[in-house]
């Protein structure tokens, strides 16, 4: 994939109203692969924490017998973080406002995860 196609995948996510930013994160080391964030969001730190949470959740879910998670959502007072792991281990991440259409963001994340592989 090219940088342009990464950017295009993220652009589709950030077009959803209420999405404050989107990132592609390497799931194994938590480094940012590509990002499209509103000003003030600390991408590298969020990426590292998202990857760490994803790893813990994946292990817990595998231990529980549910299989690895293919979508997860952190719900907070003033927004949330939505994550879809791609097949190659890249995490597609969206940072959202509280009133976002989470179902729509989920669909865009799944599309982006398919596109980035």
């Amino acid at each position, binding site marked *: 994939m090219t940088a342009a196609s990464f950017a295009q995948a993220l652009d589709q996510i950030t077009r959803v109203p209420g999405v404050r930013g989107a990132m592609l994160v390497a799931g194994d080391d938590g480094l940012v692969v590509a990002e499209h964030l509103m000003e003030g969001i600390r991408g590298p*730190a969020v990426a590292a924490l998202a990857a760490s949470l994803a790893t813990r959740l994946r292990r817990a*879910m595998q231990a529980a017998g549910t299989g690895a998670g293919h979508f997860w959502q*952190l719900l907070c007072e003033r927004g949330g973080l939505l994550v879809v792991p791609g097949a190659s281990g890249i995490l597609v991440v969206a940072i959202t406002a509280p009133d976002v259409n989470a179902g729509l963001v989920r669909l865009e994340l799944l599309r982006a995860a398919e596109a980035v592989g």
Partner: protein
Amino acid sequence: MVDEVKALSAQLAQEPQSLVFLRLGELLRQRRQLDAAQRVALLGLERHPHLADAHDLYARILADRHDYERAFDEWDMTLRIAPEHTGAMKGLAFLYFKVGDLAQAESHLKAAKKVTPDDFTIEQALAMVRGGAEPAPPVPVAPPPAPDEAEAKPLAESRVFAGLEGAEEGLLLLDAAGLVLGGGLRSPTGDDVTEAVAAYLAGVSQEAARTAKLLGLGAWRGLSAEGRQGHVHLVPPTGDSLLLVLRDRSVPLGRLAIVAQRAAQAARHWLERQQ
């Protein structure tokens, strides 16, 4: 009484939208015709899904059938629709008593007494709870429990989520270090996976809190995840505890969040009593 059942049945057939199903269902329940009573109650609920008395009727039938988890859900629903429904309060008190949670039983009876202070049956039930004897179930007497049920769930761990669906195989309460405080988990194949899952979840609460803080999103309220064979939802009942709900894929994430909130409330009560 047979004639009355026939008369009510005929009336219901003529006026399917009427509330006569409530009397018919209760009458059948009292006659121990529980299959027929359940059919009547469910048909009534289909037509009147937001009628508190319909949920209460169905809960009583379920309680008579010893299906206490679903009875709990129905009485819980009754109270959501009608917060001052004393039948549901008494029903929940009865269920809490069955699992040995005397404090919750007494709390629900006290709440019922506030609504209907002249109901002497509540005072009687309160006296029984305080004296350790089983209070009467909410409306006419249910059969005595079978011997094995008389020993209902004695383990302290299971009492954390007393009366909640999946209390011992789909609900887990942990402390900040990932140590199990209550509940339990079973995989879809029936294996006990409580300790393994708990170990992996140690630290999740702190990381979720850090992520939320970093993004300026305030406190974290929940973490839900979809898997191929099941879904999970995590909530922090208190600052230093973590609750996990596990269900198969047939349960949507939204419903899972509701189950988690209900379980978190039970966990908070339980944690308060431990202090």
